[in-house]
């Protein structure tokens, strides 16, 4: 839908199998020039595999890959105009940082001055000038990560590929480097394809997110769209932490209006924006913990009483686990408004911000 007119990377009918195990099936993906695409999905869904196919590190079984309009399906990785950054940094341990950066250029036979110039530029961008003579073992995790990025940077590539570049770092460093990568992208304006299974990274970095599952792209959209209008239950459950609350029940038409119900619980759906024509039948109702109000009184199209089960303070916010009839619900509230365990509360939400999924899991 939002495929660019002149895509930077275009993947057509990509199929990849390891022996009899098919990991990617007829995958299509167009990425615009300068776009920051994040591949997000649970472990084993084929994110790294897809990235490796783009990089040319795996021999694909079928399909084509274009980078900058050129068919690179059978090109060597080095000829594809890509740079790649790995989760484990993959720095050459016996070489100094400078050697690490220059290795690729030397192999390609770039003249000495040119190499020096490029290293100087990359070092400046990444602020690793003082580290150039050190060995990777003498660097901290964040520094290593920067050198790994530098290695792609010096090669002046069109497309950056990142395979979970931050997941080996601790939370603090991760959020710092996340911002740095974002700044880098703003500065370089290269196309970037970024694999992660951390949704915060995905949400904060991406222009568009491709949520994958079992080798298939479930939804490819801007972060907010994915957050607010997940195309199916998988995407809905995968995005958001703590996860969306799901309630199994039935979709019914009563008096010309649609409503969702299970047991005592009846949710009127007058404010809900259906994606397709609804049909009565089993359905799953999903609402995010942060979209449920607690004791906030009036104004909600839906409200009910619930018992507090567990209270999990998380700093500024507190996660409250409620029992609503037979259902368990989590609600995120500011810490100062957190109720006591065991108390009764009044909850409410607007179905407009909720999602309803049909029997096949797709959004209604």
């Amino acid at each position, binding site marked *: 839908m939002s495929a660019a007119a002149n895509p930077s990377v*275009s993947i057509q009918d990509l199929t990849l199998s390891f022996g009899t195990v098919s990991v990617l099936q007829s995958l299509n993906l167009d990425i615009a020039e300068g776009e920051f695409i994040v591949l997000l999905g649970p472990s084993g869904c084929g994110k790294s595999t897809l990235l490796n196919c783009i990089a040319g590190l795996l*021999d694909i079984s079928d399909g084509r890959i274009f980078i900058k309009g050129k*068919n690179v399906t*059978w090109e060597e990785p080095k000829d594809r105009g890509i740079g790649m950054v790995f989760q484990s940094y993959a720095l050459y341990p016996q070489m100094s940082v400078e050697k690490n950066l220059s290795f690729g250029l030397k192999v390609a036979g770039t003249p000495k001055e040119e190499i020096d110039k490029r290293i100087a530029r990359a070092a400046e961008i990444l602020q690793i000038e003082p580290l150039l003579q050190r060995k990777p073992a003498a660097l901290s995790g964040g520094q290593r990560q920067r050198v790994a990025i530098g290695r792609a940077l010096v090669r002046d590539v069109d497309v950056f590929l990142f395979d979970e570049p931050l997941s080996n770092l601790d939370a603090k460093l991760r959020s710092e480097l996340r911002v740095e990568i974002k700044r880098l992208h703003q500065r370089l304006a290269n196309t970037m394809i970024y694999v992660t299974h951390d949704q915060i990274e995905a949400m904060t970095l991406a222009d568009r997110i491709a949520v994958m599952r079992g080798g298939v792209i479930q939804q490819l959209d801007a972060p907010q769209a994915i957050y607010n209008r997940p195309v199916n239950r998988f995407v809905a459950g995968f995005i958001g932490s703590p996860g969306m609350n799901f309630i199994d029940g039935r979709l019914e038409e009563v008096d010309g209006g649609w409503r969702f119900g299970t047991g005592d619980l009846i949710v009127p759906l007058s404010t809900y924006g259906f994606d397709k024509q609804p049909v009565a039948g089993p359905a799953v109702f999903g609402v995010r913990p942060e979209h449920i109000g607690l004791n906030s009184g009036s104004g909600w199209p839906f409200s009910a009483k619930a018992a507090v089960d567990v209270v999990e303070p998380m700093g500024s916010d507190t996660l409250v686990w409620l029992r609503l009839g037979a259902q368990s619900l989590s609600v995120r509230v500011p810490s100062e408004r957190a109720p006591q365990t065991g108390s009764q509360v009044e909850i409410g939400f607007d179905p407009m911000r909720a999602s309803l999924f049909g029997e096949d899991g797709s959004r209604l």
Partner: protein
Amino acid sequence: MASTMSSAAKRPSRLFRNLSAKIASVPMILTALVVFVGGTLWTVLYSFTNSRLLPRLKFVGLDQYERLWATPRWLVSIENLAIYGVLSLIFSLVIGFVLAALLDQKIRFEDTFRTIFLYPFALSFVVTGVVWQWLLNPDFGVQAVVRSLGWESFAFDPLYNSSIVIYGVLIAALWQGTGFVMCLMLAGLRGIDEDIWKAARVDGIPAWRTYLFIVLPMMRPVLITTLVIIAAGIVKVYDLVVAQTSGGPGIASEVPAKYVYDYMFFAQNLGQGFAASTMMLLSVAIIIVPWAYLEFGRRR
């Protein structure tokens, strides 16, 4: 749009992908195909002939095999190999593991002990055979020494007693080989997750039980590597027997590899030697091939 792109770049020939890797593997491929497969097929083929000093293609059917299995020496060799193989497999694994476990107790002088256990591995079987022949010689070896100390009836002369000579060979073989097994085991032990030990201690499981029931089963990869190495050595045992006993007394310590060698070169009956080696290959194949297939062929 896609159609404008779809030109260019044809799929290159499969053969030339990773060409360097293939070229670099030529020695391995040649060795595998020409030496191991080729040599084996050649051997099997000629085992059906009556080749004497020189190989010649005069087929005699299964004659060589019939004769082989009617030869007492071959039967003794097989029996010896079985006894020697089973015992040396068991003992070197057990001793190697026990030693490794002892060395793993954060003891002092670990390096010294390890070196002591390992050094015989540096020596050739010829040397090992010579030394142990000397030590086990009843006239001046251990037996003589013990007797000279006053225990006149002491008898320990495995090399001159047909019924136990193979154990004499075993003693020497274990002396030579267990150090290396210990080393492998030690490496394996060091690779076990520290938390497992802690968990077992918290559970109150005694150390020996932890070793036996928890750690040992976790060392499967090491055990397999060790097994390959020991087993490969067992089938090939030759130098040691030649140096230590020459197969004697009589034919009591003969082994298949020696039978092959003797009949191929000494008796100048290549056909017989080839038949014997084919039998050895066959038994190796029955044990090894399914395992190797599982271990290396299918995985990855």
